[in-house]
């Protein structure tokens, strides 16, 4: 089970996330678990593989909102960068971003 301590160790800004969740720990942790399984991760991966920047932008944007609100900082950083690049349809090493994101996600998944 994910714990507050483990999230802190992961690098999440737990205090901020908890505040948004009206300091309900269970509620916050439940949402983190949900975020780990967010289908937007899969959608982002598929879009990058298909080199569909528009789809990728939408998926990344969704993740940005949810991860940001939960203050899962290590995941937010690569996702936010991706969103800006994709918004301007820039060429970049997107698979490298994906790898960073996937590493973070897997770390969290392992806590579940």
């Amino acid at each position, binding site marked *: 089970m994910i714990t507050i301590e483990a999230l802190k160790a992961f690098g999440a800004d737990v205090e901020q996330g908890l505040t948004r969740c009206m300091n309900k720990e269970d509620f916050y942790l439940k949402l983190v678990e949900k975020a780990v399984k967010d289908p937007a991760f899969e959608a982002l991966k598929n879009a990058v593989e298909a080199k569909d920047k528009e789809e990728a932008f939408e998926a990344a944007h969704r993740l940005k*909102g949810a991860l940001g609100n939960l203050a899962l900082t290590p995941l937010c950083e690569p996702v936010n960068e991706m969103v800006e690049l994709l918004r301007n349809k820039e060429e970049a090493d997107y698979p490298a971003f994906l790898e960073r994101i996937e590493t973070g996600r897997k770390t969290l998944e392992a806590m579940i």
Partner: protein
Amino acid sequence: MSEFAYPKKLKRRILIVEDEEINREILANILEDYYEVSCAENGAQALQLLREHTAPYSLILLDLLMPVMSGEEFLTEIKADEQLSGIPVIVMTSEKPAEVSSIKMGADDFITKPYDSPEVILARCERIIQLYEDNSIIRSAEKDELTELFTREFFQEYVRQIDSYDEAADDAIVINIEHFHMINEMFGRETGDEVLKKLAGMLLRVFGNGTCIGCRPDADYFYLYVDHRDSYDNVFAGLSEELAGYSHIPKIRIRAGIYQNVDRHISIEDRFDHAKLACDRIRGDYTKQINYYSKELNDADLYHERLINDIDDAIANRDLIVFYQPKYGIQSEKPVLRSAEALIRWKHPELGMISPGDFIPLFESNGLIQKLDHYVWREAAARIRDWKERFDYTLPVSVNVSRVDIYDPELEQRLLDILEENGLSTSELMLEITESAYADDAKGLTEVINNLRNRGFKIEMDDFGTGYSSLNMITSIPIDVLKIDMSFIRNMNKDEKSRKLVELVMDIAKFIKVPAVAEGVEDESQLKALKEMGCELIQGYYFSRPVPPEEFEKFIIDEKEN
């Protein structure tokens, strides 16, 4: 009045439009203690919710980037929609350029992503809702301008909210002002409006402490939805007097129908229908101010509905049967058959014999009695003719003329047509009019009766002694026969008062020089006493109960043989 109109428990309704589930959950969690929250995953779903929901939303929280229909498209749509354009929108975004474009499209404020602290979000929502309501169209449609109570739609919505937040039992109350239209007519509309306003204020005072919402769905009806109480004794006491004192209208009176411990499985409308049924049931009953809804009351109502529905079939299928009760002259040595009274009976194909006491007052109250009366007139006229033809014997029959008939401009012609069809004269069909009709509108009635009498009809005043006519009126009104109500006859040999009253009526009859008929005569001692008093005609079980026409023929045959 704010406490009354907006109990603390009532929550405004907010719609969250956001495609990311986690964000929806976080927002809903922040808002749900203070608002009624609904969610949509995209603009199209949100539009559907807004349009199919009769309940008003006070605020929309809108994400901009969503599949199916984006926030921007959604904004454009609702701002062009007359019904929805008045709902404020707060846009949730992390992108600066989007903020500018959405403000141009009519968004009212922003919430940034990631979200600010819950306090900030709540404060923004509250501020925008307040801002809109203070100068708003919304609030004006929410309130009845006159009384400041809710309008019907908003009232229903708030009842719904009480249902979802408050588990404690509730009562539905319907309050009505007796004879309110008279107040408007006699004292002017302004006074009528003042009375309504005053009553709303008084109800606030009485119920203001607990949960209570009120509305005025129409005219002089008030609906209240309040915390359950076991008893309402004394709750309304004094309100009628206070209202009368305030308005200087002495006869003003309010009555209340109460459906306690409402069943939340039935619709809000049904709950108030129940209370209204109880309220309307005591209309005109000055002994009762409060009536509680019960299953029996409902059953009685359903039964009445059934009778109302079945009346046309009953006439068409001749399930209504006219019975006849003889009236005998008693001043000669032997009683002489003089006439008969036509009385209706209902042999219902499924319900069996229905007592006239069950359907006549009902049909009198809703005007259907007119149909019944016409039917009886036709039947009685045909019967008189039939007896004339078969027995060569003319027996006048009296029929009932109800209050509604008197105001029917066609009354005279209707009666004449029926007589003509059967080759009868106006002296053969006698007309009974109840005394209370005289008391109601003596002047209008006199005119109608004079016309009928000029045509040759004989008028009998029915139920005399129960309608509070003044002696002055009795001497001036045109009648041909006085019928003493059977309640006096029944008790005349048991208590001195009834006996004196009967004597008094006999004296009145002598004074105005009309014969008196005693109804409900059951035994010889009554007959003897009445004969001594000079009563001319007698009707009652002593001679016969009302009987079907075939059975009645024996009286005619007997009479002819003697």
